[in-house]
């Protein structure tokens, strides 16, 4: 069918518009504000860094530009991969397009437009930086369109490369699984970059007193890898800045030629993949290899569907609920189901790994020697942050990710209080275990005594119970049961409630702990409270204040749980299959 491309693109644009129109106007406004603020901060920051480098580091521009393009390519390759897979290889509508008399080239071109979106968004950061370099270095006018053209070409190069990689991966792995793994890898990369920044890179880029940053390592590194295609656009732009038009054109043409070659190859391989239906139209049967359960006593074949008596028996059967064993527990049922689901859901597993990695980054940042916090209070801050972070990662999605299974829980003779309790009890042990290990580790590292470790552990239990309850409540207050992506399963109200509640609880808890510890010292007459006298009366007043704060913290958790219970009880909607 000639001209199918505009038809497909129009349909996709219509779908996108409808999705946008269907959204809550308040959320659209928040989204727009977030985008504008992020654009101004990221774009402005990137432009300012580029302009500064362009002005003050003319000797390192080639390496910096090559580094920028390489970093962007790597970032796109990892972070943009899930979008590329979703757009080109996943979706029932793809099946409809393939059975229609439409050229694969048209499908590829149409899908490529949505496949490049994530990569294009990422490239915006580099674009601002590269334009900034031009402004700082006083580049000729044609530097700017050339920069934009080269960035667009780089986006196409990476997207085409991702498509090619997927056509190979799909021979063994179904598209949806590949997308989920790619999303996990993207998250891990983000966390690893963050960790690397805190541990190492920040030092490199932090300005030394009275001098420019030391970029000699970076320069020598990129001189060694300047043959990489990811560095070519950078070389083209730096040649333009140096006035070498011939060199600049050579690198630019090489980049464009590579882009064209990769896009053509991707289209060809995409066509073959669709023709073979590799991993696109239904995954290989997902079989979970486990021990085959052997029934301990095989019932004899029955002629009747239920019991085999054959003849209808009007007398009611003894209820199977009243059997010979111990009664089943809904808590156990939910815990086992969640555990099995967690183990088998690649998306959840891959989401947990970055969540575990990130606190390490913060731990590294907070435990820098320059920190003015004393050992114990530094440990308190670390434990507070870690328990808040882990609780959020493990507990906030615990109810929304029930998805349609939530209806099963609503149909069961189970109150929403029981469900909330079950979810809190399920999420608490792993959070506690992680915090205990972490508390012991930081206490040993900071050479804290046994008493301080005990105080830290008691505080950790209190924090974990509070944060987990708040996170579960946040998810229950604004659940998006239809979200296919766990990260979108809690709405903005739930997220804000969870974050706000957790921060409030953290402040209250640390305040209570401080009042207890300093109050105890004041009661003993050993505290240094500045102008306030260190007397038993002041000490008891402080301990009383600490108790009141504890009650306030408990009340905050109770209020949020009550609100969550009310929201779940009032849930009155159907949940479509996702």
């Amino acid at each position: 069918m000639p001209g199918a491309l505009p038809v497909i693109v129009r349909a996709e644009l219509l779908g996108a518009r409808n999705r946008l129109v269907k959204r809550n106007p308040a959320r659209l406004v928040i989204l727009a504000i977030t985008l504008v603020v992020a654009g101004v901060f990221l774009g402005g920051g990137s432009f300012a860094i580029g302009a500064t480098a362009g002005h003050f580091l003319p000797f390192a521009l080639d390496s910096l530009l090559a580094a920028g393009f390489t970093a962007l390519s790597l970032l796109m390759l990892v972070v943009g991969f899930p979008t590329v897979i979703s757009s080109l290889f996943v979706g029932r509508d793809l099946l409809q397009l393939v059975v229609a008399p439409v050229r694969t080239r048209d499908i590829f071109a149409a899908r490529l437009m949505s496949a490049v979106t994530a990569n294009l968004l990422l490239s915006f950061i580099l674009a601002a930086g590269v334009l900034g370099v031009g402004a700082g270095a006083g580049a000729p006018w044609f530097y700017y369109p050339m920069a934009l053209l080269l960035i667009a070409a780089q986006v196409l190069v990476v997207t085409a490369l991702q498509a090619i990689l997927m056509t190979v991966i799909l021979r063994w792995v179904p598209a949806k699984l590949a997308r989920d793994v790619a999303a996990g890898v993207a998250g891990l990369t983000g966390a690893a970059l963050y960790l690397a920044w805190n541990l190492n890179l920040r030092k490199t880029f932090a300005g030394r007193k009275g001098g420019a940053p030391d970029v000699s390592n970076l320069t020598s590194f990129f001189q060694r890898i300047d043959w990489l295609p990811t560095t070519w656009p950078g070389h083209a732009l730096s040649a333009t800045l140096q006035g070498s038009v011939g060199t600049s054109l050579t690198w630019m043409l090489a980049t464009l030629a590579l882009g064209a070659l990769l896009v053509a190859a991707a289209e060809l391989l995409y066509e073959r993949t669709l023709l073979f239906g590799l991993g696109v139209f239904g995954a290989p049967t997902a079989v979970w290899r486990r021990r085959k359960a052997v029934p301990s006593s095989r019932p004899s074949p029955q002629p009747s569907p239920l019991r085999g008596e054959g003849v209808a028996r009007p007398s009611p059967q003894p209820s199977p609920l009243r059997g010979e064993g111990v009664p089943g527990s809904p808590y156990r049922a939910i815990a086992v189901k969640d555990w099995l689901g967690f183990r088998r859901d690649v998306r959840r597993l891959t989401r947990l790994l970055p969540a575990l990695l990130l606190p390490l980054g913060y731990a590294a940042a907070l435990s820098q020697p320059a920190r003015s916090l004393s050992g114990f209070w530094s440990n308190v801050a670390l434990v507070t942050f870690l328990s808040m972070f882990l609780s959020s990662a493990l507990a906030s999605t615990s109810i929304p990710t029930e998805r349609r299974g939530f209806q099963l829980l609503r149909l069961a003779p189970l109150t929403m209080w029981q469900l909330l309790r079950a979810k809190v009890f399920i999420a608490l042990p792993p959070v506690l275990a992680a915090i205990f290990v972490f508390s012991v580790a930081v206490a040993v590292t900071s050479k804290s005594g046994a008493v301080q470790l005990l105080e830290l552990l008691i505080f950790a239990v209190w924090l974990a119970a509070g944060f987990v309850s708040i996170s579960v409540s946040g998810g229950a207050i604004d659940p998006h049961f239809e979200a296919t992506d766990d990260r979108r399963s809690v709405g903005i109200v739930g997220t804000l409630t969870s974050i706000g509640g957790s921060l409030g609880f953290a402040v209250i808890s640390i305040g209570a702990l401080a009042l207890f510890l300093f109050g105890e010292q004041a009661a003993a007459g050993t505290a240094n409270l500045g102008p306030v006298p260190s007397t038993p009366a002041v000490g008891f007043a402080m301990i009383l204040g600490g108790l009141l704060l504890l009650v306030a913290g408990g009340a905050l958790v109770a209020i949020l749980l009550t609100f969550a219970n009310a929201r779940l009880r009032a849930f009155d909607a159907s949940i479509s299959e996702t």
Partner: protein
Amino acid sequence: MIDERSPAVEARQLVKRYGNITAVDGVSFQATQGEIFGFLGANGAGKTTTLRMLCGLLRPTSGTALIDGIDIVAEPLPAKAKLGYLDEEPFVHPHLTGREFLDFVADLYGMARGQQRVDRMERLLSLFDLAQKDGELIGSYSHGMRQKIGLASLLIREPSVLLLDEPTNGLDPRSARLVKDLLEELAARGTTVLLSTHILEVAQALCRRVAIIDRGRIVAIGSMDELRVQTGSEGANLEDLFLKLTAGPESREMIERLLASGS
């Protein structure tokens, strides 16, 4: 005809509104113990909404839903313990195997653990040809298999009331027949079955009485004979009665018009 047995399912003036749209408008009926009661209607007539109000998934805008005389809104837990609801798209957990799912449901309803439960589970898995799928996650099941595991999850605990929304949807003929036999046997044992379907042959074969819902309102209720009398259509089958009562456009006439406009 007045049935002297106590109503196991009762809808009293059930209304459900979504903004200005009234999905269900004053639906009332009773299904007695051991009865298979058919609930018929076209797509979007309000069958699923009514069933979801009866099982407690939806809160009625007004009216009352009673299960064995218990108001499901006022006393949800005892009412829910008595009923089993199968949605047209069964609620299942894709990351569990069939056996694990049955175990989950049994625990959820506090069913005693032990050999009796294991035997029952095995029997149901064999009955629905799912025993050989052990080790396979429900996420990879076909629609028919999901329907079967959904049914098995109801039968494992033998509720006294079954609310089934299109239970034969997506089943192969053998499985569909099995479900029909099962429902008849369950009804004979005293289980009340409320069967929502638009497959009229199934309703005619199984149901002692039917209610026909159209645009949120019940337009007729009774046995086949009573419906024939109500509509003045002697000898008519359920399909004829349904079409007459829901007053849709004559399909043959529409087809002819469509073909004429195309030629």
